[in-house]
């Protein structure tokens, strides 16, 4: 599992590459939290174009970051989910709190 970052104005883009499960979740969580602490972004976008697997442990990671960002008045979006991941996102009700976009450009514009 790899995590990389990109900043665009006040938005932090978090690229997830690999498989996000309970095993990789602590590494992913720590990487993201360090970056948020360092860059203090308003909004965050999860770029999932290279995420090949995610289960409900991954949903826990996303909700955790969402709570922090939302409590500071920021917004969270997700882009480029593969079908399996989109289904987990829908089943777990993430859809109601975090919008999904087809690509980064629309996400940054519409967030």
């Amino acid at each position, binding site marked *: 599992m790899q995590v990389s970052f990109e900043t665009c104005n006040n938005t932090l883009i978090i690229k997830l590459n690999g498989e996000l499960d309970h*095993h990789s*979740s602590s590494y992913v969580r720590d990487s993201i939290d360090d970056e948020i602490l360092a860059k203090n972004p308003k909004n965050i976008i999860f770029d999932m174009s290279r995420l090949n*697997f995610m*289960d*409900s442990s991954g949903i826990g990671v996303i909700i*955790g970051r969402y709570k922090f960002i939302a409590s500071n008045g920021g917004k969270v979006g997700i882009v480029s989910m593969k*079908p399996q991941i989109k289904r*987990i996102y829908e*089943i*777990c009700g993430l859809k109601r709190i975090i919008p999904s976009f087809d690509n980064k450009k629309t996400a940054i514009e519409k967030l």
Partner: protein
Amino acid sequence: MKIDNEMKLEFLSKSQNESFARSVVAAFAAQLDPTIEEISEIKTAVSEAVTNAIIHGYEYEQGYVTIVCRIIDNTVEVEITDKGKGIEDIEKARQPLYTSRPELERSGMGFTVMETFMDHVSIISELGKGTTVIMKKSFKRD
């Protein structure tokens, strides 16, 4: 009911074995020629149950997780067992959003995911003895 094929996998309750375990079940189920979507459904359901065994069953202590997998006609049956702590209230545990470990950022959606992705999910558990999750999925082919 004739068992067409069967395997049993036992492994240490280490989190790095979560991805190993779901790949093994997927490789075994491959003999039923599932679609890519069906394979990722099984992988996800197995990942949920194995993660629960490691986190909730053994609470990160070392133990063995066992997976029994059977192919009967066009159905795959997966039984995932831990000899850990057990579940006090199974009905409550199955509820969406319920988690006993919110401090670990668990979403409480594990059982809901298993139930959505598999045709059948049943849970046998005894406090102090352990838990078995039995899941079934049929592949209907015309």
